[in-house]
């Protein structure tokens, strides 16, 4: 689906190089990598906000280079950005959510139906009439997601959507993203927070404009030293397991979540009478 030999140029050098990806439907794909590695640039290629210098991006058989299908590409691939304040267009919540469908020239009745449904999906249906600037950052981000949902997308690309949020807002937004994924929407989620990628189906690690790794979260966390070299964080649980392993304990390398760790450790604690 994505085949970019040479993407978007900045200060004389390519931000993306030799990227060849197939994003399969319904997956939760996490995109990680240090700052400036091209995550944002890659996401912006997905819905034609940026067009590759060489290479092509195909969405459902539509080339993002083709101006005739660009509207349709943008409808299929929704984009949620980092700063909640910089992406809300409308003055009220419902008005903002109606922006996308309005651009697609839907009838007022259809727009109202979609606004109601999308706000319901993110749990903001009671806030429809509120002024957008009165919302918390987390709520703004939910509104941004609803705005994308109102266009009925098959993919949603999120560019560090929780970077500006407090823990409560982050939790709410992540819950919503997971629910949407369960409902069949493909998620491409760029993030710095390694704890957020544990539940992904597929992890892409980027560095200097290239995809360095493409696999499952379980596999990626077997390469802990390599990740540290890249300057990436390791989820706390994984780090704990890794250290325990380094100390000669026999704990599996495939433990990523707190639940898995609890089960593994408690069984060992019981077996070893209080010693791991």
């Amino acid at each position, binding site marked *: 689906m994505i085949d970019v030999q040479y993407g978007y140029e900045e200060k004389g050098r390519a931000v993306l190089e030799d990227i060849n990806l197939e994003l399969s439907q319904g997956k939760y794909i996490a995109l990680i990598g240090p700052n400036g590695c091209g995550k944002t640039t890659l996401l*912006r290629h997905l819905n034609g906000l940026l067009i590759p210098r060489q290479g092509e991006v195909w969405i459902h058989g539509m080339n993002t280079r083709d101006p005739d299908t660009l509207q349709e590409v943008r409808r299929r691939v929704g984009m949620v950005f980092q700063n909640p304040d910089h992406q809300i267009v409308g*003055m009220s919540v419902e008005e903002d959510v109606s922006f996308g469908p309005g651009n697609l020239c839907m009838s007022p009745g259809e*727009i109202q139906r979609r606004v109601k449904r999308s706000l319901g999906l993110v749990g903001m249906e009671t806030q429809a009439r509120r002024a957008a600037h009165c919302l918390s950052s987390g709520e703004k981000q939910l509104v941004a997601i609803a705005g994308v949902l109102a266009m009925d997308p098959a993919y949603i690309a999120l560019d560090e959507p929780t970077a500006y949020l407090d823990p409560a807002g982050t939790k709410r937004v992540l819950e919503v993203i997971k629910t949407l994924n369960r409902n069949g929407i493909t998620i491409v989620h760029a993030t710095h927070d390694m704890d957020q990628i544990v539940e992904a189906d597929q992890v892409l690690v980027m560095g200097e404009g290239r995809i360095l790794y493409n696999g499952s979260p379980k596999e990626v966390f077997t390469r802990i030293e390599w990740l540290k070299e890249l300057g990436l964080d390791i989820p706390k649980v994984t780090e704990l397991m890794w250290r325990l392993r380094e100390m000669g304990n026999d704990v599996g390398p495939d433990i990523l979540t707190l639940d898995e760790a609890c089960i593994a450790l408690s069984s060992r604690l019981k077996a070893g009478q209080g010693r791991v």
Partner: protein
Amino acid sequence: MPCLHGLRRGRAGFRTMVMIGQYVPGDSVVHRLDPRVKILSVIGLSIMILSGTVLTGAVVGFFLVSLIPLSRLSLRPVARALRPIWVFVLILFLLHLLFTKGRPIPPLGPWPVTVTYEGLFRGLGVAWEFILLVMSASILTMTTSPTELVSGIERLLRPLKAIGISSHDVAIMISIALRFVPLLLEEMKRIKEAQTARGAVFESGPLLGRARAATSLMVPVIMGSMRKADDLVTAMEGRAYRRGPRTTLRELRLSGPDYGALAVMILITAVYGLERYSLGAGGFPLLS
């Protein structure tokens, strides 16, 4: 919360700017009127107020005052909207009172200046006109949400397509500008606090120093706005925005009360026309 409370806590200048005619959510007949009807009425009333005379002034005044209970606004926010303009009204009144030639009013005491009957009438008239203008505009903005105002303007400007102005573009521009006001105020406050924390002085000191401090405040605010605008454009394009026609959440449609309001406006216009063109010379010009 960076909501209204944040704005109210700001400096008096911001506060009054935001408070004049701020939208008061409600469900009255006036609130539910089509924004186009309200905008056109305010424009019509303003023309009549400025060019009309005693009778028109009285009729429009009666009409506007009766709108206050009809829109279920309490008197306080209306009075508050008028508060910042009292000084202007007073100055206007005094200027006309003191500088109009005519028959002098016999002084009631040891007044150092002579005032004339004409000056008194003209001063009162001008002050009355000014109050009516502010009142009509305030009632419009207090009973019409910014969203409705923008969609009303959008519809009213549609004929401008003939001369190449897209009312959709104008509407998007206005609504984004309105949407950014609270954001910019918030950012200004933050930058100001950051600079105050590093020793900048905004509220006191010599005028030149304050002007300099204000410049150092404006530069980051403007830079920040540029970045915001850039991000916003990307976000808008990401949501399939392009220039040209787009639809909105609600399509405006005239209903019963709107026709009623139009009828009242026609009635007032008739009174105005009668006074201006039939009574002609008999009318007493308030402002000429």
